[in-house]
């Protein structure tokens, strides 16, 4: 089985979801990677360490990385047919797999959390209905098969491989696709660990009452525990916190050692993004809130009363 992974990187370091895919792919077959961007040598070394033997690459020339990625992979497929191309279900991964699927006329399976190879057949497992139901789907058409996998589906582990050989690829005709140009990057300030990588996540929902409560309740507790702060969609849509903090079906999947949910009801679309956490604490004033069905420790109470006392107690200890 020949597998190609669409690699994404941030300042020369492959993102965790890319390393997860490489780790999984090398257990299933021979792995190569395709990458659009700068710092190619550093990326080649890092993907090699996770099992990729070759890195196909092209410059983005100011266009969207995923869009150029589709052209890059189409060019790679034309010369060395892979059986399977894996993408992380990220912004750029979705651009890349969508455009590629239409370009080469192959269906794509998305929201995968597992990849199973049996001889020549490839199936992808996905969670539907907010994670209540698991569906396995097998590709029945010609290769290459295309799949987008949700981050955190696999655990990234290095194999200690040598740097991947770099192959610069000529993109050929990209049509109007590359006309969309990135003019500027805006970075929002963030302190502490990344949400997807933190070992402790403290999330707030509508039950915290107001945007003003997020700092003193959610951020403060997260900082004390050296974790990251997250949110339900309700308070992202309300504009209390940026989208990058959203946990759930349309936000991030997190699997920390400990997840603390403050004033979150526990809708299936939220649960699907956090119920893989090792331990869950929930504080909610409604004893019937569905979040309690997944909580290892549930506190039926008012976050405005419980959390300040908790913060005081933790401060007193440190």
């Amino acid at each position, binding site marked *: 089985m020949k597998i190609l992974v669409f690699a994404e990187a*941030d300042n020369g370091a492959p993102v965790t979801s890319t390393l997860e895919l490489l780790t999984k792919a090398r257990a299933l077959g021979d792995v190569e990677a395709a990458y659009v961007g700068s710092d190619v040598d550093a990326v080649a070394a890092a993907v090699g360490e996770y099992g990729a033997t070759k890195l196909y690459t092209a410059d983005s020339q100011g266009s*969207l990385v995923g869009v150029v990625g589709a052209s890059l992979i189409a060019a790679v497929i034309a010369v060395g047919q892979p059986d399977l191309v894996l993408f992380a279900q990220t*912004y750029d991964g*979705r*651009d890349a797999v*969508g*455009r590629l*699927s*239409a370009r080469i*006329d192959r*269906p*794509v399976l*998305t929201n995968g959390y597992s990849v199973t190879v049996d001889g020549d057949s490839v*199936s992808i497992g996905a969670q*539907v209905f907010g994670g*209540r139901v*698991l*569906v*396995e*789907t*097998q*590709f*029945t*058409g010609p290769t290459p098969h295309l799949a987008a996998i949700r981050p955190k589906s696999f655990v990234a582990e290095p194999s200690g491989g040598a740097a991947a050989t770099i192959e610069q690829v000529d993109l050929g005709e990209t*049509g*109007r*696709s*590359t*006309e*969309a*140009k*990135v*003019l500027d990057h*805006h970075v*929002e300030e963030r302190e502490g660990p990344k949400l997807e990588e933190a*070992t402790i996540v403290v999330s707030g929902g509508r039950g915290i009452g107001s945007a003003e409560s997020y700092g003193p309740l959610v951020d403060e507790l997260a900082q004390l525990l050296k974790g990251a702060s997250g949110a339900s969609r309700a308070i*992202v*849509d309300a*504009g209390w916190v940026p*989208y*990058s903090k959203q946990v759930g079906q*349309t936000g991030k999947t997190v699997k920390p*050692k*400990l997840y603390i949910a403050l004033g979150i009801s526990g809708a299936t679309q939220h649960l699907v993004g956090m119920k893989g956490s090792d331990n*869950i*604490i929930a504080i909610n004033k409604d*004893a019937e809130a569905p979040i309690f*069905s997944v*909580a*290892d*420790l*549930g*506190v039926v*109470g008012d976050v405005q009363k*419980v*959390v300040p*006392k908790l913060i005081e*107690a*933790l401060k007193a*200890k440190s």
Partner: protein
Amino acid sequence: MNILVCVKQIPDPATPGELTAEHTLKREAKLILDESDSFGVEMALQLVDKAGGGDVTLISVAPNGEVSGLRTALAMGAAKAVLVSDPSLSGSDSLSTAKVIAKAVERVGDADLLLTATESTDGYTGTIPAQVAELLDWPSLTFAKQVTIADGKVTIQRQTEAGYDVVEASLPAVVSVTAGVVEPRYPSFKGIMAAKNKPVDAVKPADLGLADDQVGWAGARQKITSVEQAPERQAGEKIEDDGTAFEAVVAYLEKLKVV
């Protein structure tokens, strides 16, 4: 300024989803406008307004001839709709649906912009905007949290992991908008009455030049091999706060050795 908007009609998300024996989503009850698409409809109305003229045209693909979701969007102010509908569409995957949408865009003709949501509420494959753009050979500007049009160009703020990027392309283009990008208006009574008489161009895939084996299960080139309930996580201890519940939380944190 002529803007096309994709609107998906879906079962009410408040009722738990179910699969049919053929493994498609059950769609027996009345379908409604996917709330995610109401943002695209509102955005289109505002952009046409700012441009000082033009039409908003809706595109919807559904196996049955459902129009109730379309009527909601027409009541918000869209001028007309194309509904591609046929039983052969049942089981269509994202690429087949994108092929139908791209053909419908060509049928309407003369469009400056196609708006979609980033993902549908029921299917959430989230690839259709890029697929449609590729089929039309238009640029795709995805995950927009702000959209402006000037001098034949569209500029968006594109959501990223770190914040947002400013992305620009010439028209025509596909833009996918995130929830909350604008505040969708409620249809007025007058709007609801007017919507009843707005034109809905009902066509079949064959009218768009698509063969039966390009859509539905035949076009999807995949088969579902198993469907099972996800294992449930067990609930643990639940305590009522009497003013000292924070102590139980501290004890739990100590047990986990995180404090």
